[in-house]
């Protein structure tokens, strides 16, 4: 075998590099090398080497969202964060934690629960990492009360495309010193830099929870009920609609608080939802999960709150017109819905549905993004759709990654 000088030079930077295997792909694009740095210093050395070698780099945590976003235009090195793990600090009295990016999100509850605390981020795909959740800005039902990654991330350590390490924010919740680069890299799909450490604000674990649910026959009714709950004084943690293809829909309200408070609010929620509403202390099936499986088409639909009933009804009607079984699930209380279609769906029909969904979401102030799809669908549809401020975004990318080596083409507008 001829000597691989690129591999040698990467290994000289940090001896945590191997040649890529058949599963080392990003949205179907194969890589040549995989490196798994154990700390920020190694990650920086690897990115400096990659810059010197003009290698295109993509980042990977648990790999659960590697097929989200557009395929990179070129790819040499996958920088894998699964060795970059662990809780650096948990200051319980200050309700903050600092976590390395490769730490699995579903491992944090066990660490934090001892202090009666939680990082209030849902993990829609089991096995995802903290860094992956930040990079793709995933969220789940509890965003209604606690906000999303952008609201909970208070500090970040980044390694830039040129290998320079930068920090922004800090370890206190209230902090307005300097630019909030944490928000800039949240949802940036690894196109601006590698996130190696995150500081988050935490919340106390609730003493009691209740899930109050009611099945409804049509989606317009689900939307109307969601509006009724929002206008009441329940202060729900989540307000979800789950509408599987071909089945009845369910509206679920999550209430958290003191035992006496939750009992009283759950009773009020049952009165609001209707006589056949039920209360449980466990979440319903599929709670906080994307309504699709590996290889399916996954969509994110957003709307102004008043547009949620219309979006629910029109999305289902548009799918029916295309004869596609559309599963809808999401946060009616904040105007974010997820939708799933079988991976084998005809790409033309999917494209027709995406067009219709874009028209509807635009009419209610929102967007339709195709998060993941099989290659034939990707070839047929624009995953991201129209984006405001794209020119400014291009300028930001140009400054942070002038050689376009970080996941080139993966993000909006070909960034």
């Amino acid at each position, binding site marked *: 075998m001829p000597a691989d000088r690129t591999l040698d030079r990467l290994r000289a930077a940090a001896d945590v590099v191997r040649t890529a295997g058949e599963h080392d792909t990003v949205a179907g694009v194969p890589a040549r090398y995989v490196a798994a740095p154990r700390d920020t210093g190694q990650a920086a050395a690897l990115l400096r080497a990659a810059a010197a070698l003009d290698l295109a780099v993509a980042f990977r945590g648990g790999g659960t969202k590697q097929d989200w976003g557009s395929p990179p235009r070129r790819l040499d090195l996958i920088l894998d964060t699964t060795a970059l793990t662990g809780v650096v600090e948990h200051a319980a009295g200050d309700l903050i934690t600092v976590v390395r990016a490769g730490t699995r999100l579903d491992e944090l509850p066990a660490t934090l629960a001892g202090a009666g605390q939680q990082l209030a981020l849902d993990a829609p795909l089991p096995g995802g990492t903290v860094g992956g959740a930040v990079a793709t800005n995933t969220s789940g039902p509890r965003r209604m009360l606690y906000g999303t990654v952008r609201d909970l991330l208070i500090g970040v350590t980044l390694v830039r495309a040129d290998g320079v390490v930068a920090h922004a924010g800090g370890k206190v919740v209230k902090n307005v010193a*300097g630019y*909030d680069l944490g928000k800039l890299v949240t949802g940036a799909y690894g196109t601006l830099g590698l996130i190696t450490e995150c500081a988050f604000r935490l919340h106390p674990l609730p003493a009691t929870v209740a899930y109050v649910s009611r099945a409804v026959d049509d989606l317009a009714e689900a939307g109307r009920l969601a509006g009724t709950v929002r206008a009441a004084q329940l202060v729900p943690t989540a307000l979800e609609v789950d509408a599987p293809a071909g089945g009845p829909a369910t509206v679920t309200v999550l209430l958290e608080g003191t035992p006496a408070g939750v009992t009283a609010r759950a009773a009020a929620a049952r009165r609001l939802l209707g006589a056949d509403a039920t209360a449980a202390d466990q979440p319903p099936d599929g709670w906080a999960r994307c309504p699709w499986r590996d290889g399916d088409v996954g969509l994110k639909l957003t709307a102004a*709150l008043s547009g949620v009933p219309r979006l629910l009804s029109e999305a289902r009607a548009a799918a029916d017109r295309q004869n596609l079984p559309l599963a809808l699930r999401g946060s009616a209380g904040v105007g974010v819905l997820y939708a799933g279609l079988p991976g084998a769906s005809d790409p033309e029909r999917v494209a027709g549905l995406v067009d219709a969904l874009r028209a509807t979401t635009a009419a209610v102030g929102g967007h339709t993004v195709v998060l993941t799809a099989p290659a034939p669908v990707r070839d047929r549809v624009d995953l991201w759709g129209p984006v405001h401020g*794209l020119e*400014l975004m291009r300028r930001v990318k140009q400054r942070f990654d002038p050689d376009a080596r970080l996941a080139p083409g993966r993000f909006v507008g070909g960034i």
Partner: protein
Amino acid sequence: MSTTTTDLDALAAALRAAIGADRVISDRQELRTYECDGLAQYKVIPALVALPADAEQCAAVVRACVAAGTPFVARGSGTGLSGGALPRADGVLVVTSQMRDILEIAPDDERAVVQPGVINLAVTRAATPHGYYYAPDPSSQQICSIGGNVAENSGGAHCLKYGFTTNHVLGVELVTPDGDRVRLGGRAPDAPGYDLLGAFVGSEGTLGIATEVTVRLTRLPESVRTLLAAFETTDEAGAATSAIIAAGVVPAAVEMMDALAIEAAEAAVQCGYPAGAGAVLIVELDGPDPEVAAQFGQVESLCRENGAFEIRIAADDAERALFWKGRKSAFAAVGRISPDYIVQDGVIPRTALSEVLRRIGELSAERGIRVANVFHAGDGNLHPLVLFDAAVEGETVRAEEVSGAILDLCITHGGSITGEHGVGMDKAKYMPRMFTDDDLDTMQLLRCAFDPDGLANPGKVFPTPRLCGEVPGRRKGVHPAQEAGLAEVF
């Protein structure tokens, strides 16, 4: 860059042509009105003032500045306390106070759309009849503008539970530093693309000027209960705060005042706080009736267990307002007990509260400078009021030393040099104590993407002039590009 009188006359003419003669001020006496913001120790008379009526006029002003190569500074009500809206002698002050229409209150969307000059409290007043309010509440909320709040990411007492301005701003239309109008975010969450909205909020006018702001409206709580607890020491009040948080209670607000702050507030507004208190806490809970009822008793007990010698519970809105009156007037009130004072703004981890307050006391004693403490105890956002008399030889310098030492204390304990007032002009020199050169250079990458010519509020936030286009990194002496006349420092 230097601006000559002829250049200025030409720019004034261009501005008058673009937005109308009555919207441009060039008379030196009238300009003097705008020589400072809420931080009056810095004063600079702007070269020109423009008062655009709408977003298009605002964009026209910025385009005229770009064409002339003239820096511009945006200003709302001018209540900022870090010199963020301090004018430039060679620049245009763009005052947004005439853009003050509430464009829409949409309770069904839990949104309001407002122009930047709208007063913070006006949003709540407009939303209240619909059962909603605007949660971020800086102490200056009766006079500060939403545009200024967005620029400074300025919060207030209710941030602990409800988050900061950045959590409540869902969209902006801005005029970029090259005069384009761009929309970021909007009525629906999670717009695709980079979160430039998140980067813009709190950027202190260095990334452009907000011309329209979409904010989240929050449901008015079913129940609000407020107590005032008096302690002999700030240590006890701090311990009570920690105990409340440790119990899993998230109050709407936890505010603390020490003896000197109480003395000042009593002198100013006669709020009638308990006599002999070394510290008072104001704790407010809000939310659904059954939750507030369950937790309020717990808070009361925790205050007593940690040494509260008197607890008063507000019986009605009037009593609650009286509790808050002392707190909200404290900054202004110290004017009654000291000829001059510095309002400092720093943040510490809540668990360091006792230690930091003790050290502030020591600093005060060592330097012979009184410090009154009034602050957001729940989130560790300190507001030490450093009192001095400028007429006494050396006191001003000593006060500034104490003020700076307090910021160093915040940094040493892992905190921040500002929690809500911003970096502005005043604290730019402290940024390198909190951030490395690499950190600051990385922030400059964002700045240069928005503002390659460095015309938007130059000289604020960042300590060292930087050149867009240079390779970030440590630099000594004059930059070669500048020496060769190829680039300007901003």
